[in-house]
């Protein structure tokens, strides 16, 4: 029978570092998926995941087991991603490079017939990726958690450590920031 998370954590805290490996193996796919929402380059994603697990190992003594280990780890992952965004704030795209042909075609189709523009299209995903990359760190985090992952405001407050009113204010500002970026893209072409 495989040891439970609680048993593995207790062993690590007692000094058995090798017991941490099954925990990494079990949860690394989820941490990778989360990190890929915030970083584009694979090398950056790997750096984030590595940092998440190192932090988790160092802070494992403070894990009281009141919530499942997965929740605790994912909260840590989200905070590490936010720190990454803030650290790389200067490197984020500040100007839009030319839209690719599929992106332009998708926008053209949306202008002519909004309902016909397919949200499954790769061009739409690339476009939202570009827009998210231009958002400020807090706006990107709140849009990802609230709009894309559709998490409740209360849960976002717990993850980020912000108060509920602050999450709401930041969500409002983030939507405005996103609309501003969209207006910039479309202004030149369609208005």
């Amino acid at each position, binding site marked *: 029978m495989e040891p439970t998370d609680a048993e593995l954590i207790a062993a690590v805290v007692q000094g058995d570092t090798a017991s941490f490996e099954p925990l990494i193996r079990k949860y*690394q796919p989820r941490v990778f998926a989360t990190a890929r929402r915030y970083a584009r380059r694979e090398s950056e994603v790997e750096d984030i995941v590595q940092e998440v697990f190192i932090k988790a190992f*160092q*802070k494992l*003594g403070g894990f009281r087991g009141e919530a499942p280990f997965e929740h605790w780890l994912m909260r840590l992952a989200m905070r590490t991603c936010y720190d990454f965004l803030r650290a790389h704030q200067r490197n984020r795209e500040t100007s839009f490079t030319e839209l690719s042909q599929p992106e332009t075609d998708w926008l053209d189709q949306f202008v002519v017939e909004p309902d016909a523009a397919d949200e499954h299209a790769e061009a739409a995903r690339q476009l*939202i990726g570009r827009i998210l990359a231009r958002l400020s760190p807090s706006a990107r985090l709140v849009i990802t958690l609230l709009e894309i992952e559709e998490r409740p405001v209360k849960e976002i407050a717990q993850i980020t450590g912000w108060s509920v009113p602050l999450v709401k204010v930041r969500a409002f500002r983030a939507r405005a920031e996103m609309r501003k970026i969209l207006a910039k893209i479309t202004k030149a072409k369609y208005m």
Partner: protein
Amino acid sequence: MNANDLQSKLIEAARKEPLFDQVPYAFEKRIMARLAGMVPLNYWALWGRPLWRAALSCVALTLLCGLWSMMTPAPKSDNPDNFAQAFDRAVYASSDQHSVEDIW
């Protein structure tokens, strides 16, 4: 063109994007190599160690004080230089010389 509709459509596109959770080969080994030699921080132990040290010092100090008080000879009660009696004399010295009516 309605910017709100475009925003909703793009967010919908992001929601429908499948999560890519593939892990590079033997990634856990890489992390384990980084962790070699590290020890998880135990916050209770961090607090506990100095608290135990402080408690031991306090016990040692109490024992020393106890020993010192046992070794020191107790002052004799009929000694005129007894501190309590000297203190009483000093406090009541003025009332011994004058009655309360004289003072008022």
